[in-house]
């Protein structure tokens, strides 16, 4: 056999083994293509556009940091960032405070799997109506002449209607809480339901009382659920604009609302700045939450 032919065979073998070795990655191709086109490219574009020059009626690709300076210098815009973070923290804390006991009940005190599932399904029943309707339904509830005020007045508990209920930060928080608390309950209940009963029996047998068992066994083992729930809630609340638009009477402007307004008035560069800021905030929050527990190990 000639050396050339031999080389040819070798390279054929090499070619074949290359496809055999890496063929499975072809499975990823559609997904990767999709994500590149509709996630990675837009993200890069967003960062790029945030440095474009914005004039009142037009935008050109001359690079400038003017939009960035405006964002951090302006009381309105930087304030919106602070407000977004504050509302996020309040909603996150309250979803945890309300969600954890609920999840604890479903995951630990309901031992029947069917009932557990039924209760979790019950938690998502509100989702059978659309998001916007659920948000808007708070208006007749919380308004000056809304259900709560009417009932309280009928019982003579208050003389004047409580005005602070609607079109304030409070109403935004109430609305978000109702929508997002279930995202906290689900993952936590799931983790709690997975805790082996024998662990709790062992702890009890070793002399620990119920509260110690909760503190040392149940809560640490449910932490992955808390983190997953917190990530869900955080990502959704940080990007929120509909609830605050509908329930704050445009008084509570979150970063999401500002993006909507800026895009509406064709201020693309400025909207991009806020988009980058929001994405960065979410990345930091998620990274921070993942630091709390090693999800890879726990799940």
């Amino acid at each position, binding site marked *: 056999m000639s050396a050339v032919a031999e080389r040819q065979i070798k390279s054929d073998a090499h070619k074949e083994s290359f496809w055999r070795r890496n063929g499975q990655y072809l499975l990823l191709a559609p997904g990767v293509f999709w994500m590149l086109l509709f996630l990675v490219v837009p993200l890069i574009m967003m960062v790029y556009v945030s440095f474009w020059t914005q004039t009142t009626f037009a935008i050109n690709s001359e690079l400038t940091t003017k939009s960035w300076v405006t964002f951090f210098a302006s009381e309105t815009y930087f304030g919106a960032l602070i407000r977004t973070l504050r509302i996020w923290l309040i909603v996150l804390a309250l979803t945890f405070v309300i969600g954890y006991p609920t999840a604890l009940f479903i995951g630990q005190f309901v031992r029947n799997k069917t009932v557990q599932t039924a209760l979790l399904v019950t938690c998502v029943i509100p989702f059978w109506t659309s998001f916007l309707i659920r948000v808007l339904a708070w208006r007749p509830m919380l308004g000056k002449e809304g259900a709560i005020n009417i009932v309280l007045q009928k019982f003579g508990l208050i003389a004047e209607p409580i005005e602070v209920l609607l079109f304030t930060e409070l109403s935004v928080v109430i609305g978000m809480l109702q929508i997002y608390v279930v995202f906290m309950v689900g993952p936590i209940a799931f983790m709690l339901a997975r805790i*082996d009963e*024998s*662990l709790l*029996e*062992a*702890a*009890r*047998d*070793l*002399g*620990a*009382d119920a509260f*110690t068992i909760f503190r*040392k*066994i149940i809560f*640490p*083992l449910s932490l992955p659920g808390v983190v997953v729930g917190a990530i869900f809630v955080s990502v959704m609340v940080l990007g929120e604009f509909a609830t605050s638009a509908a329930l704050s009477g445009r008084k509570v402007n979150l970063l999401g609302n500002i993006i909507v307004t800026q895009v509406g008035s064709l201020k693309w560069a400025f909207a991009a700045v806020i988009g980058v800021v929001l994405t960065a905030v979410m990345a930091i929050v998620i990274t921070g939450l993942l630091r709390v527990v090693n999800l890879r190990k726990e799940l």
Partner: protein
Amino acid sequence: MMVMSGLEKSYDGRPAIADFSLDVQDDEYLTILGPSGSGKSTLLRLIAGLDRLDSGSITLNGEAITGKPSHLRGLGFVQQTYALFPHMSVRDNVSFGLRYRLVDPVQDEHEVARRCDAMLELVGLSGLGDRMVGQISGGQKQRVSLARTLVTEPKICLLDEPLGALDANLRERMTIELRHIRATLGVTFMHVTGNEAEALTMGDRLIVLDQGRAIQVDTPDRLFTRPATVAVAKLVNNYNILPGRVEGGGFQHGDSRLALPEPAQVAGYYVIRFDQVAIGGIGEEIASGMASMEAAFIASEFMGSRVIYFFRRPDGGVFEVERHLSRDDPEDYAQGETCALSWPLSQVLLYGGDGRLLDMPAAEGRLQ
């Protein structure tokens, strides 16, 4: 000392534990043997307070603990599944009881560490304290689980099939170690198992549980040589149990008539231990004082130091013969070959139709 009297527990109307009474001494190794579903795990859970008794009472050193919650009973319970806390290191697992018990917790971390280390050394896990429980083997988990319970110095340690999940080699080593650990600490062990060999080796006393009742409480050797009922004999798994009836001075089992040790008794079961039987050719003379039966050879099983021969009884059941190779050489038989099985009459145990061992005063001394 723990006194249990009249313990009753049923699930959905089915009794799991029925009329169970027992005195547990200090410093003894008690094994509870029973087939699966006999209520042995339930019994431990009732004692530990993990399940509620329907009726009956338990007193520990004179103090009634029947109504006390589990964490105030001062008993240790080693779970079958080990139940180690997965988010803690071995050391934190072992220290859990000392640190967090409601009664008399150990506040001083040095003291916790000292006792934890001493216990880890006793169970042979020195140096593994900082591993997470996911990083240790099954046998080591078993030891951690044991150490975690023993370090709290329970008055009685309940072990639920502690060796069930270990492989045979490890199981054998752990039986020796468990006895050693128990003797070192002087704590009473109540060890539940479904394995008759384990129960016989481990216990100072052995309780046989069947359908929630204690059917025999005895030392292992007495329990082995004189099972109180047919059920115990079956569980000990070393006896051929031949049903039949006494007829014309012999025991009628299927078509064969077997000689009786003592004439004219009413018996429902004729029981002979595997290793008391000799295998001979057909037509060989049977010595006096021996009984014999013909059976067809099925197969043999080589067990290392002994061989088990399986024969087909005339009534279709299986008859087992055990031959220790230290006493006899193994022999081969052709499949289907009919042999004469014989055994000394002095070794025969007779049980009544209700399954109880018939009182044979003469039998006491002559059994080996």
